[in-house]
Every structure is written in structure tokens, then in C-alpha cells.
């Protein structure tokens, strides 16, 4: 198993290039949390159940992503600052197909 490279733009506009393992059953939210790219407590509020949208991000690369499941779609329907390329980080699992993925974190809800 190998790591994949991800390019993540945080909420301040800083770009982070990180390597994420594909064999640890991680999702994008956990990667961002693990690398402490945003202050603790501002991402993954619900723990990854697609119930809070604190990990909303905009996918800016042309990757073919897995289809949204109902929970993610429903949450994004209620979230703010949603764009057509919005996804919930907690629902994007780190797989080899995501090599080179580029995302920008959505603003934090007030």
C-alpha cells in the first residue's frame, strides 16, 4: 500500500501538500484533522457521520469521485456556502484513485 499526495487549501488560503495513507481506512476530514491543518474543534464536529458539514470542501481538481450517498446529499442541502463542487471531507475515503486530489476548505460556519 502506498501514500497518495493531496493538495489542501485551508480556510486562510494556505496551501498544504500532504501525503495520506490509503491503507488506514481514513477519510479526507481525518487527514485534515490529523495534519492539524485547521484549529482543533473546527472540523469533524459530528465525528464523521455526515451530520454537521464542518468538513465541507470544494473539489477543484478533475477527479472522478464516488457518488454521494443520501446522508451527504441531505447534509449539503442544509449546509451554507455550498457550491456545485462541494463535498463532505468525511465522506471521501482516501483511496489510490484520489492521487493528486485538490480541495479547498469551505469557510467555517458562524
Amino acid at each position, binding site marked *: 500500500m502506498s501514500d497518495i499526495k493531496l493538495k489542501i487549501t485551508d480556510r486562510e488560503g494556505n496551501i498544504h501538500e500532504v501525503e495520506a495513507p490509503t491503507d488506514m481506512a481514513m477519510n479526507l476530514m481525518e487527514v485534515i484533522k490529523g495534519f492539524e491543518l485547521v*484549529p482543533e*474543534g473546527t472540523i469533524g464536529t*459530528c465525528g464523521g*457521520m455526515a451530520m454537521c458539514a464542518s468538513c465541507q470542501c470544494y473539489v477543484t481538481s478533475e477527479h472522478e469521485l464516488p457518488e454521494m450517498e443520501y446522508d451527504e446529499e441531505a447534509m449539503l*442541502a442544509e449546509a451554507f456556502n455550498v457550491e456545485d463542487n462541494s463535498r463532505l471531507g468525511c465522506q471521501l475515503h482516501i483511496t489510490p484513485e484520489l492521487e493528486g486530489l485538490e480541495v479547498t476548505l469551505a469557510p467555517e*460556519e*458562524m
Partner: protein
Amino acid sequence: MITTDIIIIGAGPTGLFTVFEAGLLKLKCHLIDALPQAGGQCSEIYPKKPIYDIPAFPEVLAGDLVDNLMEQIKAFEPGFTLGERADTIDKLDDGTFIVTTNKGTKHKAPVVAIAGGLGSFEPRKPPIPNITDFEDKGVAYIIRDPEVYRDKKVVLAGGGDSALDWSIFLADVASEVTLVHRRNDFRGALDSVEKVAELAKIGKINLITEAEVKGIQGSDKVESVTIKHKTEGEYTLETDCFIPLFGLLPKLGPISDWGLDIEKNAIKVNNALDYQTNIEGIYAIGDVNTYPGKLKLILCGFHEATLMCQSAFKRINPDKKYIMKYTTVGGVTGFDGSKKIAKKEQVLNIKDL
């Protein structure tokens, strides 16, 4: 003034279990929670989700876990101040504390246990720059008294149960009800969705889907909102009230101004000893605290609550010595006079048979 032995801030699983451990030590508890019901995140966010890492429960729904905890602590008669947020804390000269809620309810105790999880749940506010200027001037995030909307023009926003249910309810109260939702489908209960569709058909609800409220206008109160439709663009809609219903979001809130050591949005505690904070007599347990190696798990909160109660006992009874007793031996004696104890084995003499 409510007086007790331990004021517990937060009625989630950790706070609830604290009542049990304190009860075994004959200490009484009173819980304060901003939500209208006990259970914290387990009740508010994910009551129907299964949890798999509660010891001896291969699988338990979060809602059932809360029900079980409520049953377990019933005999210890905990007090509850629900729907109120703990706002301020004052330490008196005798070392006791007074915790006051946002509604002015005062609680007094020698020990405060903060089991506040991620903080208190606050309504999610849509990102409309001037929305706070209109709060209580036509904008509300929670409907407390529906009569306020009688014969008024009301715009609601959201796609969940509360947006649907209130639209249905207000259709008979308000002069005009508009429900704005970003999508064409709703995630509320099926019969609520059907009812809204029905009321929209007969013109009792003005249903606008694939749209969002983007702006609010008015001189000293709400007079109109700007609606942005996916295909039709922006337009203005006259209204007296705007009620965005987008659920709740936890915020650490006023606790962060209590003079406690805070690191990474959590309260630092002494985990080598008793989960006490930098202020003697105030403890922090469960998801709200942090220490080296901290894990935000319900089972860790239970452990922290247990040790914290031992320390609280010593603070409240400095001259008493506590000898730990297993519940299998000592049973559980409630403050309500109930007593649970293991049944004694019956002795039968073989000659009597």
C-alpha cells in the same frame, strides 16, 4: 437558588453517568443543559446511530444509551435545568460556586463538573452579513411562541423536519407562509413532506425550492428578503419575519470566559489525578477536556466521571474516609428510598427435602 453537591454542566452521557457515581458516594447532582432534553449529542445529533464501543454492549443506539443512563440514575433523583445555557460562574469566599444560566437561574454547589462535550448547541445562522442586526426584529432561529406570527407574513428557510413542521403549523396562524429550500426534495418525515406539498397546492404555503435567502432588508425591522433562485435569479419578497431553521451547531461558548486553561477548544485538566481544572473545585470531564493522550470517547468520559467523583467527595467531606465498595456487595441505595441489592442465595438443607 438551587443547591446541590455537584453542579454538572452538560447532560450528555458523561454528565448523566456522573450522577450515578456521585450517588454511590451519597452526593447529589443537578444538571444544566442548553438543549431542551437530556442526552447531549446522542439525543440531538445521532439518536438512531449505533455505537459499538460501549463495554458490554456489542451494539447500542445512541438514543437507547441515553434512556438506559436515565434509568440507571433515576434513584439518585438528579435535578435538571434544561433549555438554559450556563453563562457565568462565581466563586464565593467559602469556596462554593454559583452558576447562573442565560435565563437567570442560579445554582449553588461546592463542586462544578463541566461535562460540556463540544459546547452548547446554538442555532446555525445562514451567512447573511446583516442577519444579527435583525435578531428579535423579525429574525428568529427558534420558534418559542407561534402566536407572535399571527396574521404576519413569514418566510421560513430549511429542508429538515423543523422547517416543514413549522411551515405546516404556521400556515393556519400567519397571513402568508413562504418556505424556501435549496433543493427540490426534503429530508423530513414523509408525511410532513406530503402535507407541505398539499398545502402548497392549495396555496396555503408558498413553496420556493432550488432557492436561498441571500439578503434581508428593512429600516428597523425585517421588511423584505432577497431570494436567489437557481434559474430565475434574484428577487425581493416582502415579509415581516424570517425564520431560518438549519439545525444546531455546538459552540464552547461562555465557558471559555470562565478563566479556565483552554487549549485547542478544550479545557486542560490534571489527568494524573482527578480531572480538575486550573480552578480548584471545577472539574472537566468527557469530550470537553484535554490532556496528553486524550481520546474523545464515551467510555473515557465514564472513567473520568468516576475518578472525578472521588475527588469531589474528598473536597466536600474533607474529614471522611471513603472505602470503595463494589455495587455487587453494597448494592445501590437511592435517594428515593429504593434499594437494589444482590439476592442472597437460598440455603437448602438436603435432609429437609
